[in-house]
């Protein structure tokens, strides 16, 4: 599911008030989930995380290595650097750490959000998040 547009709307609505941390949870039975996570982080290294994220969602499930490299080209990334990154599993440790973190807190569904520790499972409309964020922002001391 694609929660990206909602997340962007949240960031635009609350400038300077939201710190977004993204963790990867590539689905273990999907052939290209892992390499797609690598691709998003390789694109992040070149400053185009969201651009790659959006293209991955739009073109899924066509996420094989050759397609990913073609997307990198479309986005104007340094394709050699990008290919080297996904081939060597440059971000493998980071992704493994994310998966372990998710499983350690019994989290298996994507997307799952934590807003100051409040868990939200699944894609939700903007207003659903807004209510929680407004409540959190109005907590004393925030």
């Amino acid at each position, binding site marked *: 599911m694609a929660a990206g547009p909602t997340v962007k709307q949240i960031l635009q609505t609350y400038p300077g008030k939201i710190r977004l941390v993204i963790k990867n949870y590539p*689905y273990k039975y999907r052939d290209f989930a892992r390499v797609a996570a690598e691709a998003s982080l390789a694109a992040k290294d070149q400053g185009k995380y969201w651009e790659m994220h959006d293209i991955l969602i739009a073109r899924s499930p066509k996420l094989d290595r050759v397609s990913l490299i073609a997307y990198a080209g479309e986005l104007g990334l340094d394709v050699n650097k990008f290919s080297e990154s996904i081939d060597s599993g440059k971000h493998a440790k980071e992704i493994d750490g994310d998966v372990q973190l998710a499983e350690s807190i019994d989290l298996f*569904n994507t997307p799952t959000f934590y807003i100051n520790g409040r*868990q939200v*499972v699944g894609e939700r*409309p903007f207003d*659903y998040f807004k209510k929680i964020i407004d409540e959190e922002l109005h907590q004393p001391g925030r």
Partner: protein
Amino acid sequence: MRKIAWIFLVALCLPLCGFAGQLESIKDVPIPQQNPQTPAKIELGKKLFFDRRLSGDGTMSCATCHDPQQGYSDGLEISLSYPTTRNWRNSPTLIGVAFQKYLFHDGRASSLEEQALFPMMSAFEMNQNLDFMEEEIRSVPEYVAEFAEVFGDPDVTRERIAMAIAAFERTLISRDAPLDRFLSGNKKGLSPEAVRGYKIFTGKGKCSECHFGVNLADDRFHALQVQENPEHLKDPRIAATRRFVAKVFHFEGYRTLAEDPGRYLITKDQKDWRAFKTPTLREIAGTAPYMHNGIYATLDEVIEFFNGGGGTGNAALKPLQLTPTEKGQLKVFLEEGLTGAPIRFIYPKIP
């Protein structure tokens, strides 16, 4: 004799849902003779309910879509689904399921024991092979010991798994709602505004024609012509789910099916085309969004739908002409009057 004939004729002419039923306060939960409740069985059922082993890839449990924190629903328009697929209907709350004659929006199951296995097998829900599941559970010594304690011998079968889960589900009851206090004779059980709403509920609003009894539901199916969600109609994954279910239920036109046939899939009776089960209204304030496809996010939208006489072309409802004040009072009754004491819950430790 003539009078008797008239009464008979009048009875024949009554619409399916044409008279207001009595609302009832919470009473004893019906327990089937073949599956008596025991504390050990309930505890086992609770563990199984939260155990992801019941899904094919180990990511889903019953609680994924029936989350205690979300009123035993999941708060989404359409229910969560097996990874890479999409569900097609809203996850109904489990609160009060013990009182239901039929389960699922289309009523395909008539006991909780029967119901429990459907989502486990369903390709777009838990996608588990039941033969395999039995062996996965049997490979956990703590479970085997519990099955022996609960059922008298250690055999692990899908039927026993379903029996234990059903026993747990029969404990999910909304109790001590203001309506219950009111119906038990405490005139101050409902606030004055909620009493006004109650009068609309049972009178001008005609809600109690279908929402009556202890569970505020008539155990019947009505074609209100709730609109399809255009976004869902465009999603090929939902189309796959819809056609899959239709195929399983031997619906001839499954290849091109473009809407949810509802109860028709089960009965093949034309009057059931797009008919869905009347849901319970207990704890309704905490189980949004509403209708079988979650099309309405708020109770205001639902009240507006009924006030306008339901969906285009339906024969079950007529416009109600409620004033804005009356709609507000009705909402107060639904929110305040039908919300019981919090259901105490402690997460089980999964072996």
